[in-house]
């Protein structure tokens, strides 16, 4: 059904369900402990799987002798890379990351796995596996990895974009921009150029990766797993194991957080391979230490930014060079960093260059707006310095240069309807912006952007005989999406929210759905739900027409009722959804609506964050005093969960800005693989996180919805850095701004 975009938004002015805050349908399960997450499932005859991991950052695997482990009573299977066959080119890196072949590429890289009748036996078995390693030199820092003499991970991973003569660890180059930056800098009244570093952060979901695999000798398999995308898991695992996709049914468990970290596979193919070999179900649950060492943290980065400004605050030119390491494989999100760096600014002259670099670290995975927060940190810090140089108001300067509808984005296209200016205006008039500050306190402002996307989506909406509705979607519910799906279906159908139940269907029950990522679910599954409801409504109207003996075109759907229209208006009593459903068997059988769509038209989302902090000048400790998020949601379907996305993103940003970092020792081993020393914010670290939902409708969605999940983590690093720099009286350029780094910056400044 083609959507007449603007018309549809205007059509539904007063939402009846959307925009309200009903209790989520999966809520009771989640407050009573009944909800079943990845590790909560078990099966008769189940074995426990465990993975042996490399203690070395970089080592050639000369041989693996598992005979002693295999001989241990209770051990039912041992697998190594030899148990996996050839796979398609696009799955090679994923397989090698799940199970090392000739080299261990990072501390924590899987080299073998066992399945045994108990966890204790599995643990003992791992100790009996003898791996003969030849230790190789390693490199974990992005700048060090680019040095010409750096230890090399892969001989031929670079593509044609990388100029000759660079380290083989440099694997991709990206360049974006337009105009003439040299001329733009020449026209500036002042140019500031600075370099920045950010350390790798982890998504820090509280639920470790877990799965339960069962594969029979007939090749049929079932997998229960916590993932952001079970169809992705199905396709990837089937490809790696060499089985038909139809033979592997994947069920998504409840998922205890992902934030991008559960958009790929780590243990799932291993559990299936163990199960195939043992002929019994195998459960693998990662320990927290394994999650840190061997799942997919984000890139660390090194960024140079140069911006020129005229004395009235107009940016004349902007340039950035970004270097991201993405772990041991190609694929850091540096292109998204390079594309998004200056997205908030309407620029005549702009150029960004991104370098993708491999190092001896775990393969990075997506983390909320992958690549964008580090770029925004560097850019927004330099903009802040320019505002200070000219003594200009930071919001006014951003408003003066803000991207608006018709601006040519630094990454190429022309923006349609976007809400950046609306978030800046909201911030400007908010009391937070003018509240007084005390000594050693500072206020920071920053903007952030994320593309958002839609992707492949399939939903099925079944009208039950009692007039209730079952909605099957294929995107795991990470943060309340069942509620928003129920709302949109109820809105369209004109029935109460409580009459709709949404489930996450397994891979055998629904067509392919892309992963829950890219802030796409409320947008894309929502759009598909609306379309499926409209499909069902068309059928409901047809049934009513049949019952009345009139033309289907002469029936309209209003407030949950089929009503005769046109010449027939008022001739028949309206029929409710329940009344039509009750006699469905007599009018043609079950009634259902379906959508299969590649949902394009996800609207970009912008945010402006305001933060006040205080720095203890004697210890370098930062206290976040006040925080307000202003973000464009297009249309907030369930405002509470939109606020929750804003708050969660802001607080993850606070962690990344202040304390979270991957710390590697000289030996290339991760020093802080646990929540004790990988310091995510705790409740007592924080103030309330205030939110202002700005609604500038997205023309690509019938209700105007924009994705909100990712943009919220883009501004915080920069906003907090600007706030802390103001409070400390010195520009902080290295994240996290841990107390030792701040104290050193303050002391160095005092020393002159």
């Amino acid at each position, binding site marked *: 059904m083609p959507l007449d975009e603007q018309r549809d938004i205007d059509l539904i002015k007063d939402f009846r369900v959307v925009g309200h805050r009903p209790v989520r349908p999966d809520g009771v399960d989640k407050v009573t402990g009944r909800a079943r997450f990845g590790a909560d499932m078990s099966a008769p005859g189940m074995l426990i799987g465990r993975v042996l991991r490399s203690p070395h950052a970089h080592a050639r695997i000369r041989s693996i002798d598992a005979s002693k482990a295999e001989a241990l009573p209770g051990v039912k299977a041992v697998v190594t890379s030899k148990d996996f066959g050839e796979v398609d080119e696009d799955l090679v890196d994923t397989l090698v990351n799940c199970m090392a072949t000739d080299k261990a590429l990072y501390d924590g890289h899987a080299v073998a796995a066992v399945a045994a009748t108990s966890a204790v036996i599995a643990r003992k078995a791992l100790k009996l596996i003898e791996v003969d390693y030849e230790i190789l030199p390693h490199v974990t820092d992005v700048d060090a990895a680019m040095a010409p003499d750096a230890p090399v991970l892969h001989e031929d991973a670079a*593509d*044609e*974009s990388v100029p000759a003569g660079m380290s083989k660890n440099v694997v991709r*180059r*990206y*360049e*974006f*921009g337009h105009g003439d930056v040299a001329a733009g800098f020449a026209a500036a009244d002042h140019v500031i150029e600075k370099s920045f570093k950010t350390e790798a952060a982890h*998504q820090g979901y509280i639920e470790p990766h877990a799965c339960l695999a069962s594969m029979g000798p007939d090749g049929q398999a079932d997998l229960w797993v916590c993932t952001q995308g079970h169809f992705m898991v199905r396709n990837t695992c089937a490809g790696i194991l060499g089985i038909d996709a139809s033979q592997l049914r994947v069920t998504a468990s409840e998922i205890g957080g992902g*934030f*991008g*970290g559960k*958009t790929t596979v780590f243990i799932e193919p291993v559990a299936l391979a163990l199960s195939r070999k043992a002929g019994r179900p195998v459960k693998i649950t990662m320990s927290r230490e394994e999650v840190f060492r061997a799942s997919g943290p984000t890139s660390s980065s090194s960024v140079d930014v140069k911006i020129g400004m005229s004395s009235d605050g107009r940016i004349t030119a902007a340039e950035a060079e970004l270097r991201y390491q993405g772990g041991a494989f190609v694929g850091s*999100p540096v*292109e*998204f960093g390079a*594309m998004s760096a200056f997205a908030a600014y309407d620029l005549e002259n702009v*150029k960004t*260059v991104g370098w993708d670099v491999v190092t001896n670290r775990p393969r990075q995975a*997506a*983390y*909320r*707006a*992958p690549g964008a927060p580090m770029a925004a940190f560097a850019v927004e810090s330099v903009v802040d310095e320019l505002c200070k140089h000219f003594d200009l108001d930071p919001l006014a300067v951003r408003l003066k240069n803000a991207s608006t509808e018709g601006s040519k984005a630094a*990454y*190429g*296209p*022309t*923006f*349609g309807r976007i809400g950046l200016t609306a978030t800046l205006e909201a911030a400007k008039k908010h009391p937070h912006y003018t509240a007084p500050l005390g000594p050693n306190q500072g206020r920071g402002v920053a903007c952030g952007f*994320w*593309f*958002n*996307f839609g*992707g*492949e989506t399939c939903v099925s909406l079944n009208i039950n005989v009692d007039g209730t509705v079952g909605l099957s979607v294929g995107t795991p519910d990470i943060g309340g999406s069942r509620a928003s799906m129920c709302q949109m279906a109820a809105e369209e159908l004109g029935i109460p929210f409580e009459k709709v139940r949404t489930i996450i269907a397994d891979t055998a029950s629904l067509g392919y759905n892309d992963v829950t*990522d*890219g*802030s*796409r679910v409320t947008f894309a599954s929502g759009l598909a739900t609306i379309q499926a409801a409209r499909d069902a409504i068309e059928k409901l109207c047809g049934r009513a027409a049949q019952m009345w003996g009139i033309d289907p075109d002469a029936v309209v759907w209003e407030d949950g009722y089929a009503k005769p229209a046109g010449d027939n208006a008022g001739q028949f009593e309206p029929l409710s959804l329940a009344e039509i459903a009750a006699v469905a068997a007599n009018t043609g059988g079950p009634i259902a609506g379906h959508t299969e769509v*590649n949902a*394009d*038209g*996800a609207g970009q989302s912008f945010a402006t964050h305001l933060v006040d902090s205080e720095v203890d000048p004697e210890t370098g400790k930062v206290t976040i005093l006040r925080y307000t998020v202003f973000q464009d949601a297009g249309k907030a379907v369930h405002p509470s969960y939109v606020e929750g996305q804003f708050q969660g993103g802001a607080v993850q940003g606070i962690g990344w800005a202040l304390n979270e970092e991957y710390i590697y020792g000289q030996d290339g081993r991760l020093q802080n693989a646990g929540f004790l020393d990988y310091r995510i914010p705790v409740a007592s670290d924080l103030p309330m996180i205030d939110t202002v939902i700005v609604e500038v409708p997205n023309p*690509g969605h019938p209700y105007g919805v924009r994705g909100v*999940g*990712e943009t919220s983590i883009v501004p915080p690093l920069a906003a907090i850095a600007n706030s802390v720099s103001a409070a400390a009286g010195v520009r902080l350029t290295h994240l996290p701004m841990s107390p030792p780094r701040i104290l050193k910056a303050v002391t160095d400044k005092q020393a002159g």
Partner: protein
Amino acid sequence: MVKVLIWGSLKAATGDQAELQVEAKTIRELLDRLGEAHPKLQPQLKRGVSVSVDGKIYRDAWFTPIAEDSEVVLLPRLAGG
């Protein structure tokens, strides 16, 4: 003819041109013509791209129509978290 803007690092594959002209009415035709006219683009096209048509970004939809005066921008394949 449709005017296509490519990202900077692809200029090495197009003889330093940032703007290309191709005869195409859909995204699929666009990608096919680009690959034919500039064989050095093929590795990147094979790895995957997104296409922005009048500000709306498409990852996969081959048969999205492209008008003569559409603004068309080639982008790396988008992903998210």
